[in-house]
């Protein structure tokens, strides 16, 4: 695989090569199991909060800690060099090597040396850098860059490795993993003995001892630090920790989160110039800024420096699993790679990959440093849009149309008349028609090839609301319904069902007409201005309505109201308080039913005798931590919930992601979901998100027409109807 000269092409190439994607899926599944076992009996949330706090302290006191580290390291005999950038770092080592007449540097893994293109830099001066980490050696032989931070050669297969090794060794090696590892063991052992300099990275720079910590499995770092006379530590400044205790706490998370190990084979703590062949070793510590200070200064992105490079954000990322690290990343890959690329290599280099994230928040859920990666990526996407624009279609759609509520809604009405829907064969009574042919002719041609697109409902929810009778005497609560575009224009029947369910539990529903789109589609495309405007419209409408709670049946809308409205309006004095107030009383309908009303007790005794599998929407589970509630509600009606594999893996929707920016990646992610659903053998899949419904109804419809996709609220309404009969 070549480096990305053309991003689009590289995406297509990756998708055309399903072998890698398959391997990454298998790995991702095995990883989740190993990780779960490794954390058994421990409180991950508590541990990662502590780690995040440790790293926050480091950021605040980094100047003092750096000075303390240098003082202690020098006291133990180390020479410390502060490099502003990677070039200065390389130059320092080159000069050192020349002064020793060194010809060979044995290297263990150092990501910042990848960033520095260290091997190439020293080679230009006649110095050979020998990678000794097995994965790094493989990609060095192949002339590539790592595609994963923990397993650099994860994209290669044993046959390819055998070919590389055979070529280097001048003899044929069989593609057996054991044989290949043995060969590397023997071959590289020579390098440690021959090397003039050993170079290692550092996982920790311990301020109060002046020592470093290395977390490894193979044992090459120990050899690199022991055999050669000179030891160079190549490390970036954000690896500082206050003391051994903090470093040890990180070792409790790092291996568990990286590979599901309780501890790696080796954790090595080195301070100063230890004895070496009867003398004292010479140790040089090169501390590299390389854009970190600038990143620390960025309020929106600085949390990225809390990263401990466990690689987990890649392991669980559906985009990474689909296209691999060479496409979704640069030197650093996947979620963290998007951010670091923008800072270390420039926004221009990160432009495409900021848009490649589908926003599923799986990375956020597993990050041991509690970094909100998805939010930072979103921020960067806005920066990219400011810098490079958003594309004509989105510009017209968001700026000219959506901001103007009247225009937006009348255009939708007009569109519903213009489209000529083709009726879906197995359409249930009342289920909206699905179009096979797209009225929006400006989109990609292969657009409807693998999924049907929903048609716009003949009558939107907002046009139906007034006609729905609610006869409640003295209701327990009055709730406002934040309908969201999906339920308003595509699936209004979900809103109708919600009213039925809530009324049956003595809750009155009001619908403030001034509400508009939550703004996420605009925001996720990088259009903050439209996002701000839309937030104001809805805050106004719901503040005036004076309700006890605000409910949504779309978890993305819930997240927008709860989190983004508050953020967007924080600096607008006349809006900030109102936005916070609205945020506090907004929740998903399932959460309200279960946690406020205790509905699973009240719905019990209904007798729906059917099996359902449940798809966890990204924003519901990882945005609002709601996943038990819908299951409890479904079960209370007599439904059997049969779990699918990876029920909380993204469905591939991601709003405009699946329509405009990355339909090909989306397609692959959706295919995984469809097969997980099919494998349950169940004929109904329930979910709590109109976005997922658009995606899954469309794709399942093409793949297997007998499977029904339905919102949880609709099933509850049906159960209530059954009961009345």
């Amino acid at each position, binding site marked *: 695989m070549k480096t990305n000269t053309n991003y689009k092409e590289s995406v297509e190439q990756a998708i055309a090569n399903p072998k890698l994607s398959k391997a990454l899926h298998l790995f991702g599944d095995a990883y989740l199991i190993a990780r779960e076992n490794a954390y058994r009996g421990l409180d991950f949330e508590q541990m990662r909060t502590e780690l995040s706090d440790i790293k926050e302290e480091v950021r605040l006191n980094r100047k003092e800690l750096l000075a303390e580290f240098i003082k202690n390291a020098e006291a133990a005999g180390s020479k410390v060099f502060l490099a502003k950038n990677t070039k200065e770092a390389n130059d320092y080592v080159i000069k050192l090597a020349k002064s020793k007449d060194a010809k060979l540097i044995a290297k263990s893994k150092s990501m910042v040396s990848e960033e520095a293109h260290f091997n190439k830099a020293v080679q230009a001066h006649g110095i050979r850098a020998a990678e000794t980490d097995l994965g790094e050696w493989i990609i060095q032989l192949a002339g590539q860059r790592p595609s994963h931070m923990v*397993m650099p050669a994860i994209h290669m297969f044993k046959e390819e490795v055998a070919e590389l090794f055979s070529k280097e060794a001048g003899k044929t090696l069989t593609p057996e993993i054991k044989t290949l590892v043995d060969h590397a063991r023997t071959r590289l*052992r020579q390098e440690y003995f021959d090397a003039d300099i050993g170079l290692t990275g550092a996982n920790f720079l311990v301020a109060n001892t002046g020592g470093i910590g290395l977390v490894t499995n193979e044992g090459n770092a120990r050899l690199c630090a022991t*055999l050669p006379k000179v030891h160079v530590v190549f490390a970036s400044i954000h690896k500082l920790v206050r003391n*051994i205790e903090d470093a*040890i706490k990180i070792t409790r998370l790092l291996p568990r989160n990286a590979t599901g190990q*309780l501890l790696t*084979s080796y954790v090595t703590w*080195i301070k100063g*110039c*230890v004895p070496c062949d009867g003398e004292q070793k010479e140790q040089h510590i090169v501390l590299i800024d390389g854009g970190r200070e600038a990143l620390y200064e960025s309020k929106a992105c600085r949390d990225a420096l809390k990263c401990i490079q466990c690689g987990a954000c890649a392991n669980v990322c559906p985009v990474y699993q689909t296209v691999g690290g060479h496409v979704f990343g640069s030197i650093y890959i996947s979620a963290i790679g998007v951010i670091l690329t923008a800072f270390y290599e420039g926004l221009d280099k990160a432009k495409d990959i900021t848009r490649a994230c589908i926003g599923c928040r799986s990375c956020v859920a597993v990050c041991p440093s509690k970094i909100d990666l998805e939010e930072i990526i979103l921020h960067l996407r806005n920066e990219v849009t400011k810098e490079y624009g958003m594309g004509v279609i989105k510009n017209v759609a968001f700026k000219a149309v959506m901001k103007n509520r009247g225009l937006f809604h009348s255009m939708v009405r007009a569109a519903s008349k213009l489209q000529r829907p083709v009726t879906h064969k197995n359409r249930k009574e009342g289920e909206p028609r699905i179009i096979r042919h797209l009225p929006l002719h400006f989109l990609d041609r292969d657009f409807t090839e693998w999924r049907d697109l929903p048609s716009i409902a003949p009558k939107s929810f907002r046009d139906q609301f007034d006609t729905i009778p609610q006869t409640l005497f003295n209701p327990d609560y009055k709730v406002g319904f934040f309908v969201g575009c999906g339920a308003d224009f595509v699936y209004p029947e979900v809103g109708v069902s919600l009213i039925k369910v809530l009324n049956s539990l003595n809750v009155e529903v009001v619908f403030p007409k001034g509400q508009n789109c939550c703004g996420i589609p605009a925001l996720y495309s990088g259009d903050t201005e439209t996002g701000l405007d839309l937030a104001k419209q809805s805050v106004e409408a719901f503040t005036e309505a004076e309700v006890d709670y605000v409910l949504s049946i779309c978890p993305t809308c819930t997240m927008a109201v709860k989190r983004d409205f508050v953020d967007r309006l924080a600096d607008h004095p006349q809006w900030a308080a109102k936005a916070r107030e609205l945020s506090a009383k907004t929740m998903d309908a399932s959460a309200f039913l279960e946690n406020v009303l205790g509905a699973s007790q009240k719905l019990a005794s209904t007798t729906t005798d059917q099996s359902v599998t449940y798809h966890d929407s990204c924003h519901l589970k990882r945005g609002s931590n709601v996943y038990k509630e819908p299951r409890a509600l479904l079960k209370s009606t007599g439904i059997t919930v049969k779990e699918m594999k990876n029920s909380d893996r993204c469905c591939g929707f991601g709003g405009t992601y699946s329509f405009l920016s990355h339909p090909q990646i989306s397609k692959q992610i959706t295919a995984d979901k469809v097969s997980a659903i099919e494998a349950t053998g169940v004929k109904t899949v329930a979910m709590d998100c109109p976005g997922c419904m658009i995606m899954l109804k469309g794709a399942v419809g093409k793949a297997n027409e007998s499977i029904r996709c339905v919102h949880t609220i609709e099933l509850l309404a049906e159960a209530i109807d059954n009961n009345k009969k």
Partner: protein
Amino acid sequence: MANQHLEQFIEVAKRVGAEVLQLEDLEAAAKYISSVASGTTLVPETPLAVKHNLRSLLAAEDVEVFSGNFREAGHVPAGGVTFCNFCMADSGTVVLESTDESIRLATTLPETHFVIVDPEKILEDNLAAVTPMTQMHTGSDPKFVAYITGPSRTADIERVLTIGCHGPRELHILLVNNVSSDLMEN
């Protein structure tokens, strides 16, 4: 009194690929090592090794104890025998203060590393190790401390766990009572 973490330590260390044996005394340990290692064996002259005459005990069992600079014992000697400072039960880890280069060579180069552990030295977990680790690092003397958990391993080719990449292929933990309970010595 039996160490309350002993059982967990044995179980976890085995799970991560170490051989673990409970032996009567150092003579029995020497016999065992002799039965497993054939070839050049590196035995650093640490305070505990000297105190317990480890080299002589091994030589008496016909172990080929290497005398001289360990750098000249070949690229891959057959064995290395050391004591340890302390262990951590929750991860099955042995900890060796290895500032003395001979300890580092004896634990990185050989095919098999034998480590003699007094069960008294088993701590609950790595949090319990914070105190002795901090103690070891006080002052400005150069220091090299190694945590060792099972044999060397890699998963770099097709994510398949493979033992014996660059460090010892085998780690044998020999539990022997009354060797030392001082966490600062090995």
